[in-house]
Each structure stands twice: as structure tokens, then as C-alpha cells.
């Protein structure tokens, strides 16, 4: 292989290695040893808080959903098929999670509807439910995806000023990120070393060429 091609290849591998190292190290720091990613958003608008399947089922690991209301009232949190939740909420006022900001840890909310939310607690569509004073939490597995989680008031008062938090954790993510960083470091180290060695040989070659030239003259 010509020296120039070898050096170009080494440079490309070095770039790839550095990229893997930086991204991997960044993810390791962000996720931590437990491999946890947490996102939250608050809504002061009255109405239900909705986590649609596009977010809830975006990753094939269980997601822990927690809803907290500032006034300490009862919270009703439930998961059901997305079709059923759409039918239940219809035109009711709701704040729906429309995006996840990583690594900012933020959820984007989209407000829709204006009607007073119906009492959806008695419906038989809920696969999982949780109620609590001030906050409630659910661990939603992915076995029945696509599903939607709804947080609403568990009592007669309307749900306002509430926060929804989504937490995914998978230890495998941490080790995957660690592996990525390690592979990147190894690739970068070898290819940079190769580039450095090539430079030394080239410099020595220049010196040898100069000496030969002097001897000839």
C-alpha cells in the first residue's frame, strides 16, 4: 500500500475513533452507571397531561411515568391503548408531550382542546392505573404497545400546574456507551500512532536524502 494511501486511511480511522470516543464519553457522563435518562415538563393549563405512544413506546424498555400536582390534590394516572385514549379525550383540554429534548432533559408540551375533561376514571380501557395524593407513578412495560398514558385529577378539582416526568433506565446503555468510548480510544490511539510513525520515517527519509545529495556533490 502506498504511504500516502496508508496515511489517508489512518487519518480517516483516527477521525472515526475520536468521534466514537467523544460521543461515547459524553453518553457515559450523561447516563451514569445506572443508564438513566430522565425528562420532565410542567403544565399550568387545566386539563389532562398526555404521554402518547410516540414517546412512551419510543424505546423498548419499561418507562417510569410520574405525575405530580402542585396543589397536592389527588392524581389519577393510567395507561391504555392509544386508540381508546384518543376516543376518551376527544376534544377535552389536554397537554400532550410532543417531543423529548436530549440531553436537556426537557419534554415539549402541545396544548389542545378546550372542553372540560370528562371523568375517565371509570372507563374499562385502562390496563394500568395508579392514584395518589399529590403524585402518582406507573411503570409501563412495552408488552402492549402502542399505549398512551394520561394523568388527570383524581378528585373533583381540575388538574392544573402539574408536572410529568418520564424515566427510562437500562444499565446496558451505560456499558454500550462505555464500549463505544473504549473502541473509539483504541482506534484513535492506533491510527494516530501510525500517523506519527509515518511522519518520523518521512523526516528521516528527508535527512537521508539530503546526506546522499551532499555526498554526490
Amino acid at each position, binding site marked *: 500500500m502506498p504511504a500516502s494511501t496508508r496515511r489517508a486511511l489512518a*487519518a480517516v480511522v*483516527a*477521525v472515526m475513533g*475520536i*468521534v466514537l470516543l*467523544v*460521543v461515547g464519553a*459524553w*453518553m457515559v457522563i450523561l447516563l451514569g452507571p445506572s443508564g438513566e*435518562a430522565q425528562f420532565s415538563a410542567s403544565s399550568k393549563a387545566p386539563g389532562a397531561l398526555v404521554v*402518547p*405512544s*410516540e414517546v*412512551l*413506546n*419510543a*424505546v*423498548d*424498555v419499561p418507562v417510569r411515568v410520574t405525575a405530580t400536582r402542585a396543589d397536592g390534590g389527588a392524581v389519577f394516572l393510567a395507561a391504555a*391503548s*392509544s*386508540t*381508546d385514549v384518543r*376516543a*376518551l379525550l376527544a376534544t377535552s383540554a389536554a397537554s400532550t408531550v410532543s417531543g423529548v429534548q*436530549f*440531553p436537556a432533559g426537557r419534554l415539549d408540551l402541545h396544548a389542545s382542546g378546550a372542553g372540560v375533561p*370528562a371523568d*375517565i376514571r*371509570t*372507563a*374499562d*380501557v385502562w*390496563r394500568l392505573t395508579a392514584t395518589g395524593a399529590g403524585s402518582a407513578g406507573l411503570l409501563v412495560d412495552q408488552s*402492549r*404497545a*402502542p399505549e398512551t398514558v394520561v394523568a388527570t385529577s383524581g378528585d373533583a378539582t381540575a388538574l392544573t400546574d402539574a408536572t410529568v416526568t418520564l424515566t*427510562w433506565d*437500562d444499565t446496558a*446503555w451505560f456499558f*454500550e*456507551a462505555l464500549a*463505544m468510548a473504549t473502541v473509539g480510544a483504541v482506534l484513535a490511539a492506533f491510527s494516530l500512532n501510525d500517523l506519527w510513525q509515518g*511522519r518520523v520515517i518521512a523526516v528521516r527519509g528527508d535527512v537521508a536524502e539530503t546526506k546522499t545529495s551532499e555526498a554526490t556533490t
Partner: protein
Amino acid sequence: MTRHDLITKSVAMLRLRREDLIGKDLITKSAARLRLRRDDLIRVGRVIVVSVVCVVCVVMIASVPRWGATHALLGIREAPKANTTSAPLTVDQAKRILARTFTAAYLGETTSGAAAQAQLRTAYTGEGLRGVSGRVKLASVQPALSASLLLAPHPKLLAVSRGFGFPRFIIAQTVASDGGLPILHLLVSPDAATPYRISMSAEMVPPATVEPFDRLSSGSPLVTNGTGLAVAPATLLNLYAAQMAFPAKAISKAPFVADSFAVQVRAGAAGAAGAVASQATYTQVHTVVPSSVYAVRQASGDALVLGVLERTDSFAVKPGENVNTVANKAFVLLTGKELVTKAASITTLEFVAFTVPRSTGQATLVAAREQIVAGAGS
């Protein structure tokens, strides 16, 4: 003007030397000013370019939506599509619904007052509610509650609906703790906001059995138009209702096997007609209650058809006659009348379930129950 002249003139104008404008010398001069060798300066330049490319790559990989490293590493995906061939309920959910509904039904039938009425409305719907209301009203003159379907502690879940459309159903079977015939129940939920409630219940007719349904996890489909069955569900029930009329109407090529329930109803009608023959004219009409028919496909391809018929017993009192109804305690309880001079009627609901074969053959009655629900007289 040649290129050479242009550079020379430009140099003169800028009061610079000609070599200053030539790139090769610029690098050499820059290297000299930085006290570096020319080759080292070139290498430094390359390192800077590579670093910039690295940073750009990192930013792209980390931030481009749906393609970035975060998506790849975390396994972020599109949400799966809804599985239309699965049940909308888990087995646990269905069992919880059964437990709640039968508890409410039991409380509704064993207590009294507004709370009992509320429990009944929680447990029953439609014709089921009409039937149980009649049963509660006539409790003093009808068989005791020991024969009730509600004394069954462990309902057996037979089938749940398939897919996420409405109406949805649950079919369950109970056997009263004190023995007796197994009872078949149909619970329905018409929309997402309305809980499942008992729509009908009927005792199994010996020696009939209910063939297995599809797995509970996949649910059982509703048969909407009778395709693939020996007879369409609506046609079956309409013909069954017609053949039970009094005076009797002949049905050619009945799509159902003769059964003990129909025989019993016809015998009762004939008896009533004979008993009042001198004082009144008696007729009996059966009609299928609209929207009460459900047909559920079984694993074998056959279907279980459930429906409700409304039977009206009419008495047209002959001129100058007075009919004493004291002996008919149910009629007196429902109407408060012990003497009828013009006309009287009794409304009874008949809850029936048939097994319909998938291709040829006749349907078989597997469960039936009747319940007086109303009466009128003048």
C-alpha cells in the same frame, strides 16, 4: 496585460514585494514569523482541519434527529402499530371487570333502596337491566335468589372481543355455589367511556355445551353479517321468534333444532289460551330486541349467537266479561290490578343463545332464560 504585469503593478500599488502575494511564499513567511519549519506549519494546518471535521461529525452524529448516536445507542424507534388481531383487554383486566360487575350485581339484588338501584345500574345494561329490575320487583313471587346467577364466586372467563373497535364484549360462565345449571353471561361496552355491564344472562340448556373460543390473548371476532355461517344470526333469531308465536305459525325449513325451551313456552301459551278461552282472546308475539344480537366466532369456525326476544302475552277480554287476575301474582305486582275488563298484556324478555355451525346444519339452543318485566291492564 499579462499575469506577471498585473502582479507587479499590484505590488507597486500596495507597496509590497511581489513574493508576498504568492501563496507558497506566504506559508514560508508565516512559518518563519511563527519560528516554525514550513512543513510543521502545514501539519499544524492539517491537524486544525481534521479537528474541525471531527467536531462537525460529533455534532452531527449527536444531534441529527432520528439518525444521531443517541437514537442508535438508546434504541429509539417508531412506536409500534396497533395489533388489530389482539384482545383489547388482558386476562387480568377481564377478570377484574367480572369480579366488579358480579359483586355489584349481587349487592344490587340482595339489598334495597337507592343504593341497590345504583348497584344494579353499575352491573347491568340494556335488556339485562330491564330483566333484573323485573326480577327484583317480582322477587316475592318468583323463585328465591338461591337460583340467581349471582351466587357464583368464581366466574369463568370464556371469551373477550378482538381488536380495538366497539362494541366490545366479554363472555363468562358461572355455576352457582349451591349447584344448578351453568349460566352464560354477555357483558358489553358500547364505547371507550362506558364500562362493561351485563347485557344478558341465561341458564345452559342440558345437555348443551359451549365450544371453545380463540385464545383470550388474541380475542374472538364478532360475526357481523353471518358470512361463513349456516344461517345469519339475525335471520336465525327472527325465525326462532316467529315459530314461537301463538297461535302457532308454520316455519318451513327451520334453521334450528327443536328445543325444550320453545316447547315449554308454546305449552305455556296453549295453557293460558285454554284457561281464559271463555273470557278472553289470547295471543302471544315474540320479537327480536333491536341491537341485542351478538354473534361471536368460536375456534372451530362455528359461532355463538346471543340475543334477546321480547314476548308479549295479550288478552282481549270479551264483551261483558271480567277477568279476575288475583291468581297471577306477578301481574298484580306489576300492574296493581286484580280485575281486568278490557285488555291486559304481560311483557317477558327471553334471553337465548345458539350455537350456529359454520357451513351447513342447524343451529342449537344452548342457553335460555325468561323474565317477566312489565304488565298492563284495563
